[in-house]
């Protein structure tokens, strides 16, 4: 998922330099790489798929405009997710002012109906348990497992120290396990759904 990791041919740092130079090819490659995860992240937090696509596009535009402020130690992926998180929060703030309650959809739903049904059976409990977590815990876990960010990068996005990220991650996983146990006492004991 990390853009600098997939550019093995030229070395990890070269892609970032091309991104900084606003190379269209590098940006398009980055966009295609992170797009599914960004869309899934936004889909889980915004009520409509169009909202999520808007948020991803807006985040990308902001990233392009502010690429000169990208810190050296931060990957473009983490940079993009950090911006996307702010965009999503902005949407929620506006919706709160308008008294609109978001109806969060699952990004995995709405694809192939048969596949949806299968996924629903397989991961429904885990996703429901995940949704029962606190928003910040959901953020942290999703940035870790979906965006593939390291603890340090998650800490930058959430403005936490890496150690605090790890501790919060463990606490979130504990809560997730407990939520699973409440939803499905048999399989929730181990947290294994597969």
């Amino acid at each position, binding site marked *: 998922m990390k853009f600098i990791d997939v550019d093995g041919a030229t070395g990890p740092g070269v892609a970032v330099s091309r991104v900084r130079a606003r190379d269209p090819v590098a940006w398009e490659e980055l966009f295609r790489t992170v*797009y599914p995860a960004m869309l899934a992240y936004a889909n889980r937090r915004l009520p409509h798929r169009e909202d999520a696509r808007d948020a991803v596009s807006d985040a990308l535009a902001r990233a392009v405009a502010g690429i000169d402020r990208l810190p050296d130690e931060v990957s473009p992926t983490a940079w993009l997710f950090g911006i996307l998180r702010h965009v999503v929060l902005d949407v929620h703030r506006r919706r709160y002012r308008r008294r609109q309650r978001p109806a969060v959809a699952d990004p995995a739903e709405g694809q192939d109906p048969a596949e949806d049904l299968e996924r629903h059976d397989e991961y429904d409990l885990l996703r429901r348990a995940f949704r029962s977590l606190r928003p910040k815990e959901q953020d942290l876990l999703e940035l870790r497992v979906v965006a593939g960010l390291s603890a340090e990068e998650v800490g930058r996005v959430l403005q936490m120290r890496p150690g605090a990220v790890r501790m919060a991650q463990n606490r979130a996983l504990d809560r997730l396990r407990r939520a699973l146990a409440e939803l499905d006492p048999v399989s929730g004991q181990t947290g294994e759904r597969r």
Partner: protein
Amino acid sequence: MTEYDALLDALRAALAPPPVEPDASEIGHLHQALAVSAGGGGLRWRFARRSASFGLVHRVRWSAAATSARRYALAVGAVLLACASGAGAAAVATDSYLGPLRGVAYDLGLPVSSPALAATRGAMATLEQALGSRDPAEVRAAAQELQSDLSGLDDQDRQQVEPLADRLLGAAASFLALQGGTQAVPGRAAPGTGGGSGGVPPATAPPATDDGTTGSAGGDDSSAPAGAAISGDAGSVSQLPAEQPSPGGDGGLTDGSSTTVAGAPSGTVASSTATTSAPSEKSTSTDGATADGGDG
């Protein structure tokens, strides 16, 4: 694999995003944003994706809400600035400032008339209206006000209004003389009279007596008694009697000296004035001609 790792793997699988690709419009917008950013325009890439759903109109709007708000504020500010500057420019161009604002504008060096000059012009307009109304009291009051305003002008401002003011004051003096001597303009010259300056320099109308001699009836002519009416033609100078003559004969509110009046009716007025208001002060011209000897 720890329990946490197993749970993370399961969660990773459960939350795994579907393999989607950005569509062509999103890729196009990316390149557009890159072009704008590379161009240094600093413009925010605005999302403008179209959809058939009604709700998207609302959803697209939020992405551009901040930009729209800024543009709206800028537009309103520009309109207000234009109105303010336009009004200011119009006020300067038409010299139509109100009193306090005029003073401020004049102090700031804007090309507006001085407050004293504006007041004098206002007094002239008032006198003109009073003459039109043919109300002696109103004419006399307006003439007094105009005289007072004239006395407060500096030389530059006085030169701008002096010809018209003199004509108006002369007409007022003539009118008041016809109405009766007791209502004459204090300290103001009647038509065809000479005398000193009652706030307006006498140079605009060289005094002349009815016999054609040019009267040296300037303000320095102390020999001409105050309150004297000297007949003559339009160029002569006369001194209207004061409404409440002072013991010294100085009925004027200003310096009591006579004032040059240009273009005023001659002779008759002076005679009337002389006979009704100040018969004892039989006027003589500065060159010694009697007032009654005018062509009227």
